[in-house]
């Protein structure tokens, strides 16, 4: 396996605080990789550095062999890295259909076409329909997003991210805030993501982590404390000490 996303000696300081402390990290192709750590461990900062929301103080981010450290957020999306947010970030006044059609048309490079209409392009239609079916959104595709229940909105969030056809998908706590009744459907959708998409899962929930992850990286105080397969991470005494405490899932 080869790495699709890497960081080299990534550092981010805010004033005197080092939020990301020399992280060298690698996401393998097709991986289901979980990034875990206690609150304040620097997970969010790390994701913001990966996606271009923040610029690192030092170090590099490499996507599919290309140094993307200084690229804008939207340029990284075009190169194949997409993300969901911990709290839904959606186009509230649009329908799921419109939102997915928009992401699709941007991916196809139609964003500057001011005089075309979306329904004339068979590729937009085909790919939008494909995403709606894959994420089971056909029944609600014409509802306004703001009117949907939170769990459905979460599905739209993941579906619209997927519409960018990412090679790397960052899922920031995909099940956060989703009521128990809608949780199963959502997790099934996450489990059904195609194998060639590499997934980095930022998560607190141990059940989700041990259900999906094939590899786990533990962050503590902005540093990588441990990195390995779920079994060895669960047995690692330093991890148990720093993060899992007495609560063991092994």
């Amino acid at each position: 396996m080869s790495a699709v996303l890497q960081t080299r000696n990534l550092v981010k300081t805010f004033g005197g605080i080092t939020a990301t402390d020399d992280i060298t990290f690698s996401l393998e192709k097709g991986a289901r990789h979980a990034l875990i750590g206690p609150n304040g461990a620097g997970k969010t900062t790390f994701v913001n550095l990966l996606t271009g929301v923040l610029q690192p103080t030092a170090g590099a981010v490499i996507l599919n062999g290309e140094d993307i450290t200084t690229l804008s957020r939207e340029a990284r999306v075009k190169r194949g890295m997409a993300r969901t947010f911990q709290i839904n970030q959606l186009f509230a006044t649009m329908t799921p259909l419109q939102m997915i059609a928009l992401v699709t048309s941007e991916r196809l490079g139609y964003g500057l076409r001011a005089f075309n209409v979306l329904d004339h392009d068979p590729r937009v239609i085909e790919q939008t329909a494909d995403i709606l079916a894959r994420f089971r959104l056909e029944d609600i595709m014409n509802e306004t997003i703001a009117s949907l229940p939170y769990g459905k909105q979460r599905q739209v969030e993941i579906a619209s991210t997927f519409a960018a056809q990412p090679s790397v998908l960052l899922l920031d706590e995909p099940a956060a805030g989703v009521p128990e009744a809608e949780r199963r459907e959502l997790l099934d959708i996450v489990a059904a993501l195609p194998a060639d998409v590499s997934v980095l899962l930022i998560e607190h929930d141990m059940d989700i982590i041990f259900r999906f992850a094939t590899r786990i990286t533990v962050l503590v105080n902005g540093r990588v404390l441990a990195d390995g397969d779920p079994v060895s991470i669960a047995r690692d005494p330093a991890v148990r000490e720093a993060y899992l405490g007495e609560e063991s899932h092994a």
Partner: protein
Amino acid sequence: MSHLQDRVRASLQASRRWHIAEIVFWLIALGSFWAFPRHLLLMNEIAILALFALSLDLILGFAGIVSLGHAAFLGLGAYAAGLLAKNGMGDPVLGLVFAMVVSGFAGLLSSPLIVKGNDLTRLMVTLGVVLILHEIANSWASLTGGADGLQGITINPVLGLFAFDLFGKTAYLYSLSVLFVLFLVARRMMNSPFGLSLRAIRDNQLRAAASGVPPSQRLALAYTIAAAYAGAAGALLAQTSQFVSLDVLDFHRSADVMLVLIIGGPGYLYGGMIGAVVFKFLQDTIAAFTPQYWMFWIGLFLVLFVLRGRSLIHGGVKLFMTRLPWLSGRGRS
């Protein structure tokens, strides 16, 4: 699967299909020419204000950019068209295009000031720009006529056929035609991938960037287009009155156009036009009734409207549409 594709296509088509109420709206606008022959000058003013408000709607309603200085582009367009005509090129369509190019270019140049930053900085920056332009127009009297205004403008007949007259016949039909054509262009744009990306930025800039939409580029483009539209409104103002005064760059122009758009409701293209009708009608009626104090009454109306009436009026329109489903075209599908 292909069935779902058909449904997706149908939904996308439905959002841009002409509503019967839209056709009625434009027929009324045209019919007013014969129905109210004594009010053509007022109707011409309404059409121009409607175009100006449509221009603000493109940035405020669709892209979410607030501006307190939109008169900058109205004024530039008015002076551009006026100066062109004063210098012997009095063809109205040429002047219109020239004004749109000048204002659009000014919009493009000033767009870096508004694409970054928040609502407060945008309000201050747009206000600042129009204050600067007002002072330039005031001081550069050799070009603009300063406080006396730009005089001696002669406008040729529209398309060489229809001369402007004292009653506003040509003026109204000319302004209404320009409004209609630019409305059609705007309607097409707002239903395009570009228009959808503007709505995306307005709804959620964080998600827009995470969806591959470059916010700065799209906002700069929208601002440029809106500036060109405001320039067209300015050109109509200069051409149909054959005069340009410093008033086109006055603060009240920017404030009025925002009130007009808020009255009609932003984000669906018709708000500016409906607002312009209501605003001008109020202004005219109250001014006839109490010439000295009309500002008091319009101020009171606006305060009450923004506090309570907006939801009443817009709710009333919605209720009207749901009560009469055949009118909204929903009965067909």
